[in-house]
């Protein structure tokens, strides 16, 4: 059954080039991805300025604005803190505004951030609203080449984390990557075979594949230390944690949506002066 699926399924390629300095990415002439950045309300990873430099659209979800305002200057301790704050202005700040500090709100509003403060339905969380917003507000972009980078989705309250993971499943046709200082996470949708091109200077070797939300009857991988071969995975039994990437290209083919996670090699060199 899996081989018939393989013949019919398109290949989706993944590469964490957003973790490489911009100069390296343009020099290698890779097919251009358009990035958007969403900053949620947790401590920002140390390489956030690198993500910012790659992104065409930068959105803070409510208290995520506090995190940029406080956190980015600390990443450039030798530079004038106010200058740094002026260089990292989000395009949009969205949410119910109950976490953003008044002085942060005022600072960014005066410098041109679009503040979107509507009391909308309570059934969707901040991340969901930001993803919907990006999708709706960028009709001119090629969404098959759009990749949304998200910081602050993990940690804190477990139900918040679960709600954020669920957003990956709700928007399973989009490229969304969660980033923390330790790791990145993305959904590998069952609709495609997947090729992950490992950027070994910045990521690996620890990785994992998880059948969150529902079991996998058959998953097959290549390029891992413990490859799966038509293997069943489910909670309560085997799931692939503490695996390792063995080759520069990892392939994954599954009957289920899987979460892929890979560790990051820190510190990530940003190649930025500020």
């Amino acid at each position, binding site marked *: 059954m899996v081989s018939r699926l393989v013949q019919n399924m398109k290949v989706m390629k993944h590469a964490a080039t957003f973790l490489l300095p911009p100069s390296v990415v343009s020099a290698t002439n890779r097919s251009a991805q358009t990035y958007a950045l969403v900053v949620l309300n947790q401590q920002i990873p140390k390489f956030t300025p690198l993500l910012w430099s790659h992104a065409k659209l930068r959105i803070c979800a409510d208290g995520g604005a506090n995190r940029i305002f406080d956190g980015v200057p600390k990443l450039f301790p030798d530079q004038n803190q106010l200058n740094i704050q002026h260089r990292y202005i989000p395009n949009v700040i969205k949410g119910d505004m109950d976490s953003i500090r008044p002085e942060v709100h005022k600072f960014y509003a005066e410098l041109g951030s679009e503040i979107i403060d509507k009391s909308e339905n309570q059934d969707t969380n901040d991340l969901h609203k930001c993803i919907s917003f990006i999708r709706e507000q960028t009709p001119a972009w090629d969404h098959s080449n759009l990749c949304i980078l998200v910081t602050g989705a993990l940690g804190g309250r477990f*139900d918040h984390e*679960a*709600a954020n993971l*669920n957003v990956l499943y709700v928007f399973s046709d989009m490229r969304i990557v969660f980033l923390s200082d*330790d790791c990145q996470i993305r959904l590998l949708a069952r609709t495609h075979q997947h090729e992950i091109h490992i950027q070994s200077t910045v990521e690996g070797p*620890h990785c994992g594949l*998880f059948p969150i*939300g529902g079991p996998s009857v058959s998953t097959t991988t290549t390029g891992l230390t413990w490859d799966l071969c038509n293997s069943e995975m489910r909670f309560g039994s085997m*799931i692939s*944690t503490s695996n390792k990437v063995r080759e520069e290209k990892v392939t994954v083919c599954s009957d289920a949506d899987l979460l892929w996670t890979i560790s990051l090699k820190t510190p990530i060199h940003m190649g930025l002066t500020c």
Partner: protein
Amino acid sequence: MAPEMEVMSHASTFLLPHEHQHQPDPPALTYALIVLNQRLPRFAPLLWNRAQLRVCADGGANRVYDGMPELFPDQNPEEVRLRYTPDVIKGDLDSIRDDVKDFYLNLGVRVVDESHDQDTTDLHKCVAYVSNSAPVEDKSKLCILVVGALGGRFDHEIGNINVLHRFSNLRIVLLSDDCLIHLLPKTHSHMIHVQLPVEGPHCGLIPIGAPSARTSTTGLQWNLSDTAMSFGGLISTSNVVKEDKITVSSDADLIWTISIKKPIQE
């Protein structure tokens, strides 16, 4: 779902300061504590004092050695370390510091090297050990508290959540400074006695392993009524406890999570 399903009761009485312990119902549990390799939550001493068996998984020993004195900054670190000495240290021992290992070996702590077994996680090994060694005949009266299982590397966190599913017949609670989680196995209907001084109001029910066709609850702000839940669809997050008794019945294993109020006083 058979309405005759046996009811399993839950109560986070282990989070109550000692003088508030008075719950006759549910029946008294025997606690064990497992410490994994993350920063200790601020209420770790409270859990330690409740537990009859304390196990460190590898680098969890570093966390106890460094972290317990930090939670008692006015006290002599050596005295604190002697008060908070684990019974066993277990795992592949590639994270425990040499000075920490020597300190505990000199105190007679059992240090068990399991680096030969790469098929199971540190938490899995520790849960299996506790289940076999805990001083309680009836496993339904054993409750295993775990700190350091949430946060950190995501694949470790997911692996730890899988341990809850693999040992679904045991009570295992994962705790962090912000929240706790435990499994509500589909084999039972559940009664959760919320300890309002120390937990809530934020809560959630998460079908992490498989979807639920029908879940029903009482006592929540947004109750479920034969409601389907799945990833990609509805899952219950940012819910709120409204009563001090919550009931949950489901056709699927669910993860229950509830926030922990700050601060917990010793």
